[in-house]
């Protein structure tokens, strides 16, 4: 029986990659990929084959900005019930996290998905419930699907949804890190399909492979990237065909298009990235917390927000550093007392590095 964790096959694949005799740098943008690479020691084995792999801006919690967290903190302090995913609640804004203010008595709820937040709104008609909608294309259709079903009027979202392809373009345009190939995120691609990545290979001559999350998925995809490079090719290949179809999930894409439109958006560590975020279309503005609570959020409007002092998450998210290059790593910054989001989120590169280096 073939298993995607078969050690013997993994060894064979690694030996084939090693014989290709290369010196390359690849980027992926997915915390689950990073987890697989570090957990199974593939990062070290591949380094030995001349292949360096770095995590770029691939963790939606990590790229959420201090401003967005401050907006949620303000809404909670103004008496709203705020709800979001567990990791997001622990990321500090300028000074505090949502978790910190929960201990001060504000109504902050940890939820598994947006339907839980709608349920809170339905069961508490006297409360205004705001869901912090973070996530890439994998998560966006879940928000869209709920908004298309007329949730109650005491429910709204603070939209922080971002889209992956133009962030990759930004990395390549900035040119701070020389990349020979991109390992594309499997579950983002489940929704968007293979086409939205094509311009990257065409315009930047960079090979890309859409990749699953098992150890052999990653090894296979790396072999596919190296092979493209050896053959002088640069196109989009799909290693994760069992979950990614060429056109993606059409129903999900239609729901996203109906509810959201593309906007320029700031990502942590980056300036504003053109067409890399989403906002609600006019038809859905009654669910837009930024419009609904414009007065409550007014004092934040012209404020500048800075990232935590000494925190290197920005450079990490741009692929310039590894967690251990940050002077705070494992000292002032640990999962129990995180300074930046990459140490908070279980998909953040610092958190992953810390967890597995302790084992």
């Amino acid at each position, binding site marked *: 029986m*073939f298993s995607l964790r078969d050690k013997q*096959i993994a060894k*064979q*694949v690694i030996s*084939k990659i090693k*014989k*290709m005799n290369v010196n390359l740098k690849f980027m992926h943008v*997915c*915390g*689950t990929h990073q987890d697989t690479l570090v957990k199974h020691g593939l990062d070290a084995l591949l380094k030995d084959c001349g292949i360096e792999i770095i995590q770029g801006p691939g*963790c*939606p*919690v990590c790229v959420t900005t201090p401003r967005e967290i401050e907006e949620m903190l303000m809404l909670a302090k103004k008496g709203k019930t705020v709800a979001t*995913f567990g*990791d997001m609640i622990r990321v500090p804004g300028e000074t505090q996290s949502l978790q910190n203010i929960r201990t001060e008595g504000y109504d902050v709820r940890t939820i*598994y*998905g*947006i*339907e*839980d937040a709608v349920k809170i709104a339905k069961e508490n008609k006297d409360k205004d419930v705001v869901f912090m909608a*973070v*996530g*890439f294309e*994998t*998560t966006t*259709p*879940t928000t869209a*699907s709920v908004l298309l*079903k007329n949730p109650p009027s005491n429910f709204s979202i603070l939209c922080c949804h971002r889209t992956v392809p133009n962030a990759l373009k930004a990395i390549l345009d900035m040119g701070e890190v020389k990349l020979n190939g991109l390992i594309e*995120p*499997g*579950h*983002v691609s*489940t*929704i968007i399909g293979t086409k939205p990545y094509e311009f990257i290979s065409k315009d930047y001559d960079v090979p890309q492979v859409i990749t*699953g999350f098992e150890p*052999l*998925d990653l090894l*296979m995809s790396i*072999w596919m990237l190296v092979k493209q490079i*050896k053959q002088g090719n640069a196109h989009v290949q799909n*290693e*994760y*065909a*069992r*979950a*990614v*179809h060429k056109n993606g*999930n059409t*129903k*999900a894409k239609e*729901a996203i298009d109906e509810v959201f439109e593309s906007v320029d958006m700031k990502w942590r560590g980056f300036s504003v990235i053109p067409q890399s975020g989403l906002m609600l279309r006019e038809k859905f503005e009654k669910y837009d917390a930024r419009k609904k609570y414009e007065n409550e959020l007014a004092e934040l409007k012209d404020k500048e927000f800075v990232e935590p002092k000494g925190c290197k998450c920005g450079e990490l998210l741009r692929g310039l550093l590894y967690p251990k290059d940050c002077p705070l790593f494992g000292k002032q910054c640990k999962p129990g007392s995180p300074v930046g989001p990459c140490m908070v*989120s279980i*998909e953040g590169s610092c958190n992953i590095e810390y967890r597995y280096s302790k084992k």
Partner: protein
Amino acid sequence: MCLAIPGKIIEIDKNKEHAIVDYGDGTKRKVNVTLVDVKIGNYVLVHAGFAIEVLNEKDALETLSLFREMLSMEDE
């Protein structure tokens, strides 16, 4: 965040909005299925309480054949 877990649809509610998914480890959960077309017995990928894709055996075999092809190739 983009983690998605595969499971099997064992029951679909009358309005076809939700289904019960069995993850094979004794865990069963109610999942929103409005983003996919599913039948009982299908395997789906679940993310944040929603099924986001139906897994297809034919496509899974394609990945395996890619591996076989690679392993049978001579080193270049």
